[in-house]
């Protein structure tokens, strides 16, 4: 009798080992549920408040880099990272059981917990050598977490029937913002350490240093747009040879500069331009006329820089328009899920798919490899991701579609860099 049961459950388990894209996590196999852990350690860190920071703080801090400052920065990182991860873990723990036991989401959960455990145990940093070990731990964590984004989005797509879509979007937005914040803090500290350790470094502020850590003090809108534009054109040209590639015209206040984390900006502008180029190429591929150019406008005002990208790619159809900012809903979710499954793990195979170096001096490899992916891989997350990044530093991203004609995208950037990072949506409390 017992043997028969075992045989049947064995067969059941084999049946359950279906490919991830068609796996509905209600029929859970025990192996994907995250481990249970006592929550006392987590509780302690969840109770600590997060200290939001601004771009200005980031670069002012790094401008005069002394040993003391570096050690301070190390301890800030040592405290902030586990605090922020703890808040995310608690948010995940409050999701429905069926959702967290999804293989992709539980993978993310486990990864986070591992990070949390490793960071919280680091003792106070007092010397440069201790800082160096901290940096090793940070570096290892950054690398390990490269796969989080595709796994998160895949998990969310698979679970879209298990939670209201708005709650799901809010969850993903929160996760992504928190992730950006942790990576910014971490990478900034790594870059500062590099700068400090580099030969010929002096602690006095130098105006030739355009970068303070990850922050580029003077991002020139025109330069970045042209660079990302060329890159997008190249990627699309190689993907569909023989089809005419539209020109990208840039005009307006071309001298506008502002401080920003360069890799973020390149990602957002790259995504928007790539969308436009692809749309125009799709629409005009059978036409004898040359495709109409993409018009980019840079507008500078005392407090903002606005970049408007206008294309004539036919606009967004009305079936898709309501879902354009969502990670979880939409008529295309099955295709997106399949495409996401094809995104390489980002660490190992980046060299393979990267046909050319990403523009700029970006350090965030997860973003740059997403930017260099094959344009046929429609992941469907470029827009919501870009919006998260844009709003992270108190900016914004808006889209207006003229169905049948084209799309206008408006990227708004706060010029002063003195706004705190937006860790929550619309000033709602990041309640624990």
């Amino acid at each position, binding site marked *: 009798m017992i043997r028969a049961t075992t045989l049947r459950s064995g067969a059941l388990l084999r049946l359950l080992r279906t490919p991830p894209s068609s796996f509905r996590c209600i029929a859970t196999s025990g192996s994907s549920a995250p481990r249970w852990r006592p929550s006392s350690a987590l509780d302690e860190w969840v109770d600590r408040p997060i200290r939001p920071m601004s771009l200005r703080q980031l670069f002012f801090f790094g401008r005069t880099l002394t040993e003391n400052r570096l050690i301070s920065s190390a301890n800030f990182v040592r405290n902030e990272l586990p605090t922020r991860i703890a808040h995310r873990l608690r948010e995940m723990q409050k999701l429905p059981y069926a959702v967290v036991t999804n293989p992709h989401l539980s993978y993310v959960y486990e990864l986070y917990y591992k990070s949390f455990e490793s960071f919280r145990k680091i003792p106070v940093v007092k010397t440069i050598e201790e800082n160096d070990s901290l940096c090793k731990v940070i570096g290892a964590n950054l690398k390990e977490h490269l796969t989080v984004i595709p796994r998160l989005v895949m998990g969310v797509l698979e679970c879209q029937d298990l939670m209201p879509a708005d709650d799901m979007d809010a969850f993903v937005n929160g996760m992504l913002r928190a992730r950006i914040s942790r990576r910014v803090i971490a990478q900034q500290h790594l870059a500062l350490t590099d700068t400090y350790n580099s030969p010929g470094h002096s602690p006095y502020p130098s105006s030739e240093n355009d970068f303070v850590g990850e922050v580029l003090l003077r991002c020139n809108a025109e330069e970045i747009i042209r660079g990302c534009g060329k890159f997008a054109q190249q990627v699309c040209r190689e993907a569909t040879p023989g089809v005419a590639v539209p020109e990208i015209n840039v005009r307006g206040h071309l001298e506008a500069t502002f401080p920003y984390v360069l890799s973020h900006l390149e990602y957002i502008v790259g995504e928007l331009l790539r969308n436009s180029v692809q749309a125009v190429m799709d629409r005009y591929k059978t036409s004898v006329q040359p495709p109409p150019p993409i018009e980019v406008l840079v507008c500078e005002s005392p407090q903002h820089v606005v970049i408007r990208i206008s294309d004539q790619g036919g606009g967004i159809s009305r079936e898709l328009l309501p879902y354009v900012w969502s990670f979880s809903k939409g008529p295309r979710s099955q295709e997106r899920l399949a495409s996401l499954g094809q995104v390489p793990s980002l660490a190992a195979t980046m060299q393979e798919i990267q046909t050319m170096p990403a523009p700029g001096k970006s350090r965030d490899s997860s973003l740059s490899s997403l930017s260099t992916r094959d344009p046929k891989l429609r992941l469907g997350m470029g827009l919501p991701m870009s919006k998260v990044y844009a709003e992270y530093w108190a900016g914004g991203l808006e889209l207006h579609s003229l169905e049948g*004609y084209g799309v206008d995208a408006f990227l708004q950037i706060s010029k002063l860099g003195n706004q705190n990072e937006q860790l929550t949506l619309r000033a709602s409390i990041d309640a624990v």
Partner: protein
Amino acid sequence: MSLCLRRYARPQHQLRGFHTSTHNRNLDAIVPNASRQWSYMPSSATISEDEIRRLAALPRRPLTLADLVRHGRPPLSEEALLSSANFTLSLLPARLAHRIQRLRNLPFIVVANPNISKIYNNYLHSLSILEPFYQKRITTLEEEEKFTEVMADLVQTHTNTIPILAQGFLECRKYVNVAEVTKFLDQHLRARIGTRLIAEQHLALHMASTPEARQHDPDPYNIGVIDTSLQPAKIVKSCEAFVGDICEFKYGVRPRINLNGTVDATFAHVPVHLEYILTELIKNAFRATIESGNEAHSIEVTIATAPDVPNSKLDALKKISVTDESVHDYSQEGLADYCTSYEGIESPINAAAPSITIRIRDRGGGIPPEILPNIWSYSFTTYDMEHAVNGNAMDDGLNAITNGGNPSSIAGLGYGLPLGRAYAEYFGGSIAVQSMYGWGTDVYLSLQGIGKTV
């Protein structure tokens, strides 16, 4: 049932009015029947309180474009004409009564203002003159003729509601809560759009079906107030000329419009609405362009049409033709959704995305960030009063356009954008404004054609 008891039998939302009180109950105990005479202002209205209350409690439903064409293309047969008259009668009284109730819910000091009370009395008057008609169905052409005259009177009476209301609220600004009045105005003006449409449609259908009208060839494109082959580009050009004339006369410069996109696109919509909206938007663009000294840069207007909106007029006609099979009674449809809410949703929910999008792009310098949050409000605050009183030539000239040179005009009070949006949203469209301060403004007007709702 005494008045006080009836008052409590009313739906809860009506008890939230400003002047609810319980004193009448006590009064009735002391002096029987004393509370039956509400001390309303004297008016020529003969309509009774009970009747208003009964009508206001009737379920209301939003108007769709399909409602307006369900009786067929003019000239209408006698049967269709009577059907149109009765249909109108089935909708109007409830709407008017509801407006009266809402007006009564405003603070006493507001309704006592001469301008507001004038509007209030207009509504009472209109309901009174309709009463003899809606008590029974219209069955003869003579009755229909008389009814149509009454309708014409109604439309005429209410033509200047907006400037008069605006003036009234301006005068009362010290006594009102901004948020509540904005909400009132928004609901009132949106309801007004529908009420006027119903009335004007019947009028237009009637005029197109008179014996004199029948002598001419039937108009292939117009169904009452609806033009089934409305070409937005034509309206843009006429607004450009109109607004441009005024600018040239007043300021000596004339901004130009560069029209591109699907210029020959057509769809079915109400021309006067589109004209109003486009006039407002083009006026804003011209004004900004002139004020920033950029009249050398033309304003770019792009017309986009979604793929399944027919570009040919024939297709548009085919889509909306009403046959015996397609006519049906919409009066009960969707009632549950709309008639029980306190907000009294007065326009149809936007179920489908728009069919025509018009983008107006100017180089007028954009909207300053401190003004941007207020562009959709019905301005009647002290700031705007000063602005209006000390209005400069620019404002006077450009505002004279939309007020038809009316001396009691609301110069500089900026009702244009919120009202334009109310018109656009009435049939499921929208207006979005994107300002780039330091460069210019992009305005996106999207409108839904008629094909989707039939």
